[in-house]
């Protein structure tokens, strides 16, 4: 599926709920989805430190696409990690670099991507884009 199609899917999943509590219940369920990352990659090498919650990110390149797995110690952060990974994993470096993540605003979770929140998510997105940049360069050469 394309990035836009998956984003649309996620927006629809959340739009079933008006109430913030239901939205967060869904997010928490998504956060509990086990395991998003292989235990062997949950090391300091893959750690992105936010000061409130921690995020681990692993990237694997295969046949022109990048596959991400990730985790967080906070379940709400992990929920957001999950919906970012669902969209960005298995895409081409080019599409990842172009991806517009404003769908997070549409589902009313924008505040979690605020740099002042220091939950590691902003750094995770930067890291994802950085991986995409690096693999794109490799492909171009």
């Amino acid at each position: 599926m394309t990035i836009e199609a998956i984003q649309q899917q996620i927006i629809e999943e959340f739009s079933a709920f008006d109430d913030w509590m239901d939205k967060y219940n869904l997010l928490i369920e998504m956060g509990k989805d086990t395991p998003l990352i292989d235990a062997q990659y949950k090391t300091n090498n893959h750690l992105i430190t936010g000061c409130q919650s921690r995020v681990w990110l692993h990237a694997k390149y295969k046949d022109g696409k990048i596959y991400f797995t990730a985790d967080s110690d906070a379940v709400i952060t992990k929920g957001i990690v999950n919906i970012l990974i669902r969209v960005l994993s298995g895409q081409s470096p080019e599409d990842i670099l172009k991806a517009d993540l404003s769908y997070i605003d549409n589902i009313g979770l924008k505040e979690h991507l605020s740099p002042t929140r220091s939950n590691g998510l902003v750094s995770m997105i930067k890291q994802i884009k950085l991986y995409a940049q690096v693999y794109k360069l490799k492909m171009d050469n």
Partner: protein
Amino acid sequence: MTTSLNVEALRQAFPVLNQFVYNKPLVYLDNAATTQKPYSVIKRVQQYYEHENCNIHRGVHYLSQQATEAFENSRKYIAGLINASHSHEIIFTRGTTESVNLVASSLGKLLMKQGDRVLITGMEHHSNLIPWQQICHENGTQLLVARINDVGETDLDHYKYLLEQGPKIVAITHISNALGTINPVKEMIHLAHTFNIPVLVDGAQSVAHMQVDMQDLDCDFFVFSGHKVYAPMGVGVLYGKESWLEKMPPYQFGGEMVDQVSFEKTTYNSLPFKFEAGTPNVGAVLGLETALRFVEKTGFEAIAAYENELLAYGHQQLGTIEGMRFIGQAAKKAAVISFLVGNIHPYDLGTLLDKMGIAVRTGHHCAQPLMDRFQIPGTVRASFALYNTFEEIDKLTEAVRRAVTMLS
């Protein structure tokens, strides 16, 4: 529950409290981070900018003299309130952090040489830790750190043991912002003085909650921030004993702090101006005086008694939640409750509490070594002020219960 404070009337004096967040009445329980400001303080600052604004200590004209007098009267008032021996022992700074940096840098230059060390406790805020760590590094050493016991109190035996290692300066917090522990600073100061070691007390968390008396404590330095005691941000106090301040070299250089200047040489102004380079935050200083007068008038004892009731009620109510873990259960505690529930991450709890209109702090509270001591990533912290109510604690408890249900 009895209290001599008219809390409902007090609440009316704080405009920020009267608002909704996410369509729910704001429950503000992040007072250890900063307190809200009463109208009287807001109006005092406004009046200064509307009618009195002027640079001080330099103009011969009417406004400048008026502003200078008001500014110096604030200094006198604060000196009297905390029972300093002289008003020139009160130095105005930007806040606790700047006050600590001033002393670390200046007293560090005066007293420390290669191999010398500074003694702190394991519960210091980064602001009363990093400046001293820096001075130690410059002298090729490490900090001496007094251990914290399991309930969050300073281990006094270890403190005494470390005093015997010959530190040159002791810097300790009066009240821990992360745990609420009230350190027995008077005793700790006395112990340090038996070794002739000067002591700085970080009073950032104490001035809003108790009366502090410089003669009684006998500390050499006492520092605090205006914004944590109902005053504006951007102003703080350094109290220092005259005998130390006279000997210490200036911290910053520039206008205001000088006596005679030529291109070859400068002689410095007398206390307190030697330590107040540049234009101070006059409006905030006047606001600080107003805030402290408000606290004094409300009554330190009445405030402490009421906040103790809030603390006890908070422990009791939150304690009914399954899996509740209080981090910091010192016998002497200020109105701060740091907690965790089961294995729930503090960030998750804090996020959901926020959605329910409850403002608490989550994270390490600028005390990472302390969190490491308890092997936790951080805590959720509710901290109370004189305008908080028992109903708000009920709301907090209910909200925590709901959040825990969602997260389990």
